[in-house]
């Protein structure tokens, strides 16, 4: 293929032009945004969809009769349907609950499904590479019900150590694992693990925060039971998240928060919860946020999720190779070094330079990376690290981002060397 020839409908340069923040300059340099793992940037189409919503058709949803109330309701429910299609939910929109973020999705799962279905003697099996969002709610449930929280260990190869899986699975009622580690970049084999968990009668929940928006996610093909993710990590807005659940499971779940919209009836004596997803959406929902999320889904579908995945895989492979070539071990990658079952999150340990200092020096080059424990303290302890400096890619990232990253890292090494 001739250089510059387009291989697919995916054109990184065009994607960059769709992201207003990428025109920003930081400390005299163009921004090099490498913090998509924490939150992605938004496209013009996402931002404009929300503005137009507020400018033209904002109204509270449900029960309205007038035109803008209908339009707002259609927009909100239309987003739910689009999200359902995007993840190929078998029961379509009746399986998509809007929350405020991945964290709320896991709390809903633990505090409603967990509180009803799990008790002393039951086990929730998670992994040592989970984000706090998929740890703390289970610890809270343990306090309330005595359920056991068990961890699948992580090996020195930065992957799940499945040696004792059979034993670990004893009494497990729920396997709850991340699709991809937000520290290591490790992707877990969700489909295979789900099949094993199902074979012992456990349900399977997946933390999709780092999956959805970075590649195709098909809950039917994965054959899982719950999927949690956030709008703001997939080009969408803050303030909205998703909990997808099989309709057959959802129908057995009691209410979560109490209030308007989630009831069928309220008297002085008690209340009857509503049917369907409404039962979990008390109060005025994130309407404009759903509109923004719909625009993000539409944009990602336009790119093609296969193309996004291929693009990020290419960037990751390129970055891992150049980090190795350039620094010859002085910059250590905390995560797998190959791109099999690995995504575009690259945690760095820079010789002699604390991650905070790395991030500070990089900021001077306009490079945005995140230092810290990345809300995965058990994993950090596992590798004896207080923090890493993490660079992570989105659909709009390119190899020039990596070039600036390398230049800035060299400066950091020189400065502290």
């Amino acid at each position, binding site marked *: 293929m001739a250089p510059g020839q387009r291989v697919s409908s995916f054109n990184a340069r065009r994607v960059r032009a769709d992201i207003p923040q990428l025109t920003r300059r930081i400390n005299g340099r163009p921004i090099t945004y490498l913090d998509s793992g924490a939150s992605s940037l938004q496209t013009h189409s996402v931002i404009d969809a929300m503005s137009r919503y507020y400018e033209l058709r904002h109204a509270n949803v449900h029960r309205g009769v007038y035109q803008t109330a209908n339009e707002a309701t259609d927009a909100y429910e239309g987003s739910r349907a689009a999200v359902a299609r995007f993840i190929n939910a078998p029961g379509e929109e009746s399986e998509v609950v809007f929350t405020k973020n991945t964290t709320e999705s896991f709390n809903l799962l633990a505090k409603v499904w967990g509180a009803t279905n799990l008790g002393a003697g039951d086990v929730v099996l998670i992994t040592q590479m989970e984000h706090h969002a998929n740890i703390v709610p289970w610890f809270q449930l343990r306090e309330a019900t005595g359920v056991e929280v068990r961890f699948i260990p992580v090996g020195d190869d930065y992957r799940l150590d499945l040696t004792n899986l059979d034993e670990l699975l004893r009494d497990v009622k729920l396997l709850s694992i991340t699709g991809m580690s937000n520290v290591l970049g490790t992707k877990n084999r969700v489909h295979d693990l789900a099949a094993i968990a199902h074979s012992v009668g456990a349900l399977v929940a997946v933390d999709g925060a780092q999956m959805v928006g970075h590649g195709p996610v098909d809950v039917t093909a994965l054959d899982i039971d719950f999927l949690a993710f956030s709008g703001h990590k997939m080009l969408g807005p803050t303030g909205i998240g998703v909990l997808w659940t099989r309709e057959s499971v959802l129908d057995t779940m009691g209410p979560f928060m109490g209030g308007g919209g989630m009831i069928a009836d309220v008297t002085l004596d008690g209340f009857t919860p509503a049917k369907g997803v409404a039962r979990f959406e008390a109060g005025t929902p994130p309407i404009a946020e759903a509109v923004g999320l719909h625009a993000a889904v539409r944009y990602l579908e336009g790119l093609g999720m296969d193309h996004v995945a291929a693009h990020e895989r290419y960037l990751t492979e390129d970055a891992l190779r150049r980090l190795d070539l350039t620094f010859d071990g002085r910059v250590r990658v905390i995560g797998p070094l190959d791109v099999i079952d690995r995504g575009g999150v690259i945690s760095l340990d820079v010789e002699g330079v*604390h991650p*905070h200092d790395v991030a500070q020096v990089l900021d001077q080059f306009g490079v945005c990376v995140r230092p810290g424990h990345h809300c995965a303290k058990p994993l950090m302890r596992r590798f004896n690290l207080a923090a890493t400096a993490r660079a992570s890619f989105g659909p709009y990232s390119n190899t020039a981002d990596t070039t600036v990253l390398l230049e800035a890292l060299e400066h950091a090494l020189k400065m*502290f060397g």
Partner: protein
Amino acid sequence: MSNLEDLYREIILDHYRSPRNRGELASPPAHRVEGFNPLCGDEVTVYLDVNDGVLTDIKLTGHGCSISQSSSSLMSTAVKGKPLEDVRATIEAFKELMTAHETTTDEEERDATNLRTFGELAALAGVVKFPVRIKCATLAWNTLQQGLQELAS
């Protein structure tokens, strides 16, 4: 890169690379106090020997970024061997330095003043321009302050 050099002055990097008064003191008799910054994971442990109102010895252990580590090292050299009154005054003055938001516009003049008041410690003055790093610079100082309060009560 002028900004960055404002933060990472040579003295800071030097104290980061070769921290002074690093280590432990037997406790007791020394007083031991721990400081922790939950946001970034920086940790510092301060050991204090106080005799007749004088901070006769101080040692520090811990880990963290260059700012928190050099600040502890610089602190130890500034307070070691001083009467507690002076130590307390230095703590106050340093914390003041860390909150002073550009009152003097003449940077050179300010730098000169700081140098007169703070000596080597003045190297940390640049941190105020990086508000998120202030908590790194003040961690050891807050820990020392807490230790002195514990000793007093």
